[in-house]
């Protein structure tokens, strides 16, 4: 019992309620907590197949459909035809269909059309696996980590420093050190919002976004220092990491062993979350911090540990990029990996296997978008639109259900803590 008081004292102050309302407020709090069906709780209980598979798949379908509309109404030819709709209604539809079919065909052919295309798609998917896992890991503990972008950048700073300064060591050792440095860098960056939330109640959404900006400027600054900057270049680019992941999939394609490492990390995360005591503790805190505290767990400590681990996972994504794709740190090192990570975590229902599958889908979209732009002049940013639409429909399954007239599933999907307080 004294233990519990101790925890209570250390924990962030509960939402302030006037003393005379304490009893009622406490009662309401319990009711609200009970109402709060979180993603984690839903996952623990095991939601139906509909929630896990049908809704995400339909969400992607709807997103692609709305994306098609966006393409139609921003392309000149169909717009011209629509303008003269009553002259030839069929032609308007046909022109629209042609544009959309061309676009999506180019996209999927560019992503899956050949062994090389497939390799590139998987290559693009690897960092997304990491950031998706990072966000998903936070979700399971009730934390919304929008900072994977900054954590990846922070990881990249340490990892690249380790990579180019550890010369003369055997190759595999350097690879290991770079991965470790990436993890540490991301973990340090991730721990800050966790610590702030635990100690002051600052909402992680704001702090992580702000830290994304800070990480970007920090990288920009460091790239101008003599320690980081490549001596033979004027633009801000770091010395390259000379070691790389071995190409175990044949030398013809760029895909490397880092893909297997990413899958391993996903499996590890799944194991920690589902099979270990700490994993259970994380999810219990995510499902209901008050109940977890009453059961002797420490939500505050969990916030810090989870955010650090989530950041570390994102940082490993940076190490992967340095060891497999771009050996040097540059200002635009993380090209929206963190934001895609949010979509991937939501789409994958915050489960590691789902995250891997969603990351592959996003790899297809991202890689294919380049062929799309080359073939049809539709900007690659269409993928960002589709990404946001996917999140929209995954986050609001009731929308998808309304569109497809599905039966109402059990529980609300992605409910995190309510309000600004912890």
């Amino acid at each position, binding site marked *: 019992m004294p233990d519990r008081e101790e925890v209570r*004292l250390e924990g962030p102050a509960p939402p302030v309620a006037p003393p005379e309302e304490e009893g009622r407020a406490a009662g309401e709090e319990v009711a609200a907590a009970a109402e709060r069906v979180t993603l984690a709780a839903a996952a623990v209980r095991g939601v139906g197949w509909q929630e896990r598979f049908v809704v995400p798949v339909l969400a992607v379908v709807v997103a692609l459909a709305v994306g098609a509309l966006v393409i139609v109404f921003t392309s000149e030819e169909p717009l011209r035809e629509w303008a003269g709709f009553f002259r030839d209604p069929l032609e308007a539809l046909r022109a629209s269909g042609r544009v959309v079919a061309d676009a999506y065909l180019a996209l999927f052919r560019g992503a899956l059309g050949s062994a090389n295309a497939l390799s590139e798609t998987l290559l693009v998917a690897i960092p997304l696996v990491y950031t998706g896992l990072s966000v998903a890991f936070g979700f399971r503990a009730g934390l919304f980590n929008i900072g994977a972008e900054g954590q990846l950048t922070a990881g990249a700073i340490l990892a690249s420093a380790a990579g180019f300064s550890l010369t003369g060591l055997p190759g595999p050792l350097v690879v290991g050190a770079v991965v470790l440095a990436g993890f540490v860098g991301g973990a340090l960056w991730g721990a800050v919002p966790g610590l702030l939330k635990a100690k002051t109640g600052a909402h992680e*959404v*704001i*702090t992580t976004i702000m830290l994304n900006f800070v990480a970007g400027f*920090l990288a920009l600054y460091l790239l101008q220092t003599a320690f980081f900057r490549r001596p033979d270049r004027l633009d801000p680019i770091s010395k390259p990491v000379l070691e790389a992941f071995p190409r175990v999939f044949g030398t013809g394609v760029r895909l490397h062993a880092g893909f297997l490492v990413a899958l391993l990390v996903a499996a590890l995360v799944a194991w920690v979350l589902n099979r270990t005591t700490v994993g259970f503790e994380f999810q219990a805190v995510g499902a209901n911090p008050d109940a977890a505290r009453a059961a002797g767990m420490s939500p505050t400590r969990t916030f810090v540990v989870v955010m650090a681990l989530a950041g570390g996972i994102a940082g490993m994504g940076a190490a992967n990029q340095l060891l497999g794709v771009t050996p040097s740190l540059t200002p635009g090192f993380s090209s929206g990996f963190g*934001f895609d990570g949010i979509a991937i975590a939501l789409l994958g229902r915050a489960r590691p296997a789902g995250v891997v599958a969603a990351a592959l889908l996003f790899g297809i979209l991202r890689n294919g978008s380049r062929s799309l732009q080359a073939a049809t002049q539709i900007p690659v*940013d269409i993928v960002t639109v589709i990404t946001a639409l996917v*999140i929209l429909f995954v986050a609001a399954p009731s929308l998808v259900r309304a569109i497809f007239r599905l039966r109402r599933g059990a529980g609300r999907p992605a409910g995190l803590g309510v309000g600004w307080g912890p």
Partner: protein
Amino acid sequence: MTVTVGALARGGVSARRERAVGIFLLLLAAAVAFGFGLGTGAGLDSRFGLNPGGEVLFKVPDLVVPTRVTAYVLGGVLAFLAGVQLTRGFGRRTNVVLGVSVLLFILAFLTWAARGGGFNLLGMLQSTLRASVPITFGALSGVLCERAGVINIAIEGMLLSGAFMGALVGSVADNLWVGLLAGAMVGAVLGWMLGVLAIRYRVDQIIAGTVIYLLAIGMTSFLSARFLQRNQELNSPGRFQPIRVPFLSDVPVLGPVVFHQNVFVYLMLFLVLAIHVGLFYTRWGLRVRAVGEHPRAADTVGIRVLFTRYRNVVLGGIVAGIGGAYFTLGSVGRFDELMTGGRGFIGLAAMIFGRWNPIGAFGAALVFGFADSLQVRLSILQVPIPSEFLLMAPYLATILVVAGAVHRARPPAADGKPYVKE
């Protein structure tokens, strides 16, 4: 039992926090006295320009102060504030004192930076007010939404969309006011979307807001790449020119700063007052606050809770949309991708720091605007601080504010909680 422990915890935490603020003030005082005071050679003066360029009716002499003495005086004031805070505590006014102290610190810093030379203080104040415009609009949008119980994390997205539509429609219509209207309209649409997701479908409001934010990033980047970058005539709306208020603009110092600005500044000042009066002195405001604090009670007395929330979220969207249009129509004169640079989130922090109060939020936005305009001015002064760190300043300040103020400030009781009619 729980009640007493809870109250104890709250008292303990708040006492610790008060002490932390006091120690922070003491550190500021030490930095000012020793860093800026002792660190300056005796006999140096700092000159602050107080006149705008061009013809003025009343010319004000430049303010010339001895650098070292000024630093000692400001350090003394800070030490006094720290002493009061540590012994008696400022209680409810702590945020204000904190803001004033930071301003004093920056003033001391500027004095130090301008040692032995001159510095156009008036220009700094002008750019401070201008830089605070989008932050204030964002904060006001947050106040409108959250006072009614809906968390609006999407402000950044609304700013970005408002900026985009302002530029596009303003260019097409060749009329700045039409552009402004379009910015407000797109804000309203996004606000309505947030309302549908948060109020109708009861999606977690943080996620709903993030979705809209990401959607805004995707759509504006896509459309900008598709249209604006290829047809520059679609992206040249022009800018609102400063309007000189007769007589008032001739008042020394205050005149050029406040009464020689463009329409956005006047609109901002008007909205700050209007929303403040509206919220706290009208029936409308009482109802809004009732809905945000205790929707069930409000419902019982016949206030339409969901309607009030919808209306306020749409209003908030309009305000944020106008604030976004400032970027293109009031400041830069064209749209660039991601040009809002996190101002929406900084606005949220300003809202929290201002305790969900329009005037408080405006005050906080001024501090952020100061930090924002600082880096431009300091690069002119050639202060030996890398520009990247100055660029980080507003974001770091936001983190500090959210971490330091969130517990002292009490959000509306029903903030972020969906309401279900019984």
